[in-house]
């Protein structure tokens, strides 16, 4: 099952960060001159059976379904145990702890696993997203974010983006109601430098 890497563009920060997540893997063959990757060994070559935590983008480059140079160990957040937890009640789970890029990374992972495991992961992601939506919508409607730190800290990056979008809507509405757009405000640069500059003619024009 192929999924697009770099869905938002090659330079998209979100993608870069998501693909930075590490996966634990075991090397089945020896790789010459790659010994520096393993900080604990002093060999110039990478030995068979060395277990390393490598970032996703590196593994994606060397992963090959047929030859299996590396054996990938799925991060525990995407294993069956957590699937059951998410199915039980997705709203209380702390997704930020489970990797701040839970959804994005999950989608990227689908390239590295077999079809049926991948399908499970995909389905879980989808249902989890759907059930958490209500919570995000309610959170974003509240405009004082200081009280919500605890709740927001449990959201993963994608959900935080959605929360911010919702906040934009809510704050925009309040600004409109208070008619704050009617007031002309001086730019920040002007007010910061106001006391430093001398006002040449203070009489109104």
């Amino acid at each position, binding site marked *: 099952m192929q999924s697009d890497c770099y869905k938002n563009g090659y330079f998209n920060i979100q993608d870069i960060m998501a693909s930075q997540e590490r996966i634990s893997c075991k090397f089945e063959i020896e790789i010459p001159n790659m010994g520096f990757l393993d900080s604990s060994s002093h060999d110039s070559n990478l030995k068979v059976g060395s277990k390393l935590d490598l970032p996703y983008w590196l593994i994606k480059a060397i992963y090959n379904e047929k030859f299996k140079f590396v054996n990938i160990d799925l991060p525990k957040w995407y294993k069956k145990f957590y699937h059951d937890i998410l199915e039980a009640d997705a709203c209380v789970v702390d997704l930020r702890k489970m990797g701040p890029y839970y959804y994005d990374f999950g989608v990227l992972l689908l390239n590295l696993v077999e079809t049926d495991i991948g399908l499970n992961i995909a389905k879980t992601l989808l249902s989890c997203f759907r059930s958490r939506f209500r919570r995000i919508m309610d959170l974003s409607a509240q405009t004082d974010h200081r009280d919500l730190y605890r709740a927001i800290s449990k959201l993963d990056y994608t959900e935080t983006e959605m929360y911010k979008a919702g906040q934009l809507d809510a704050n925009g509405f309040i600004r409109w109601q208070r008619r704050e757009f009617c007031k002309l405000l001086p730019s920040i640069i002007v007010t910061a430098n106001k006391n430093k500059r001398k006002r040449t003619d*203070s009489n*109104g024009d």
Partner: protein
Amino acid sequence: MVFIKDAKKEFLDQIINKRVLVFVHLDVDALCSWKILQHLLHCEHILYSVIPINSKQALEDAYNQHKQVANNIILINCGATLDLVEILQPPEETIFYLIDSLRPLEVRNVYNGIQIKIIVLQNELGIEQKLVPEYEDIFDEEEENDEENEEEEDGDENLDEEEPERNRSKRKRFDPEYLEKMHAKREWESKRSKILFEYYKYTYHRCSSSLVLFDLAWKSAKDNNDLLWWSIIGLTEQLINCKIDRDIYTRYVVELNSHVLRHNHRPAVNALGTSNTNPAPDDVSINCLKISHLDDLNMVLLRHWSILESIYHSIDLACLFKMWTNKGKKKLNEFLADLGLPLNECKQKFAYMDSSFKNDFKMLVASENIKEKYRYDENFIYLSTFIASFGYTNKLTAFDMAYAVEALMENVDGEKNLSDKFIEALNCLNRENLKALECGIETAKNHLKKIYQQIQNFIDMNQIVASGPFLQVFLEEGSNENPFFSQIFTSKKLARFALQSYLALTKGKKVRNMPLIVCIPLNESNTLIAGVPPYRATNNTENCFGLAFDEAAEKTKSRVNFSYFDTSIIEINNEDKSKFLDALVAVMQ
């Protein structure tokens, strides 16, 4: 004469589509007038520049700086008593529109029909015209023509010069017709100087500028509740600074009341009518300004202070109880006890007092036995004024607002230049700016406290002395509060308070009718002298010091600067002070 008969046609319609330059004097009445005028200018899309000014020199400088901006210049509460054409040297197309409550108007302004126009209240037009001397009595047209033909300009302001005549007189010296003419002319001249002396003798005030502008707005159908409120504040300031008498004030209050009723008419839902405690539910939003007439107690800033502090700082009540003596303080406590108010309630802020006490307080103060015991009458304790309410919490009387705005303008704390104070005071008048209002009221309280403290000092150290025909009091040099006291209105307030308190504490008959001057050192070389007229029940608003100062200065050749528009405040060089004061004593005998 240049009094405008139809302000809408001759003023507003003339400045539509033109650029306007406005000079506003720094006093509450002028600020309120400016707010009203600003509204009118906005309605007609007239571009304007506004400049606040404080003194004659400031007017000159500002005019020279900005004169190319506009050909139509409006002056509010400044400049009507000066010969504008002479001082400012305007180009020929410039037209000045004067709105001023200060009198007497400079006669040259009144008779310059081309460049100067004066706006007064429509129904007072006749009276104003009568107040100014007749043209024939002051200006001799023949003389003027001769002068122009001879081109004798020696800068002298005297219009009927004898110089041009002298050349011709050599030929005609013994001509009997000519001698008769000279005799008539001399008579005419002496009559003229007498008329001018009588005219300029007293400075006084007439209708407030804000009322004049409100009248204009009303006649152009552009008036609303806000403008009405501002004109009420302008009128109130005139009473606070003793620019007008109580009866004149009451007359204007009645006039304004008709406007108030017109704008704030509420159909009574309840057929039983409206009582003060249960107003009928309004048709209008709570955020709209509502004004109503109120007979309020003569206690300054009552709603923002405790009763005790309010009575302490109200000039009339403080003098009634002689608050600076211990006996006076005891009498005050007795008074409060008679009203049935426990002392700790009186020390609480009025707004937080028990409501039963609040309600009784107003009624009891007017009860007969109390009035008899403490010897005051109804007019003394009650003041007719207006109260405005907007939003859920804000109730302000016109007096509160006037005090607050004046305090912000005469505030010396912080390094504020004229424009800053102007803008702050304008913000205070703006209803939406509650913070500025609170700040203003707090500042007003501070100022009142300072004045009280100073009066206490005067009384304790017997600094108010009678010297000849007037009383005088000196402030010490180097005191921190001198910059505060040396401002236009504060100095006068101090003088009035000092005069009233002195009269309350002394029993001499001679001092009853004496005016008072106060001398405040400005810096090492200059002193400010301000004079107030004697304290009388009626007609105490005519100030004779303008002319007296002038004469005394001339006699002693002192270096005196009449820097403000109000001629009863002067700046004098310290070295000339004593001889000036001696001359003043002689002049005023």
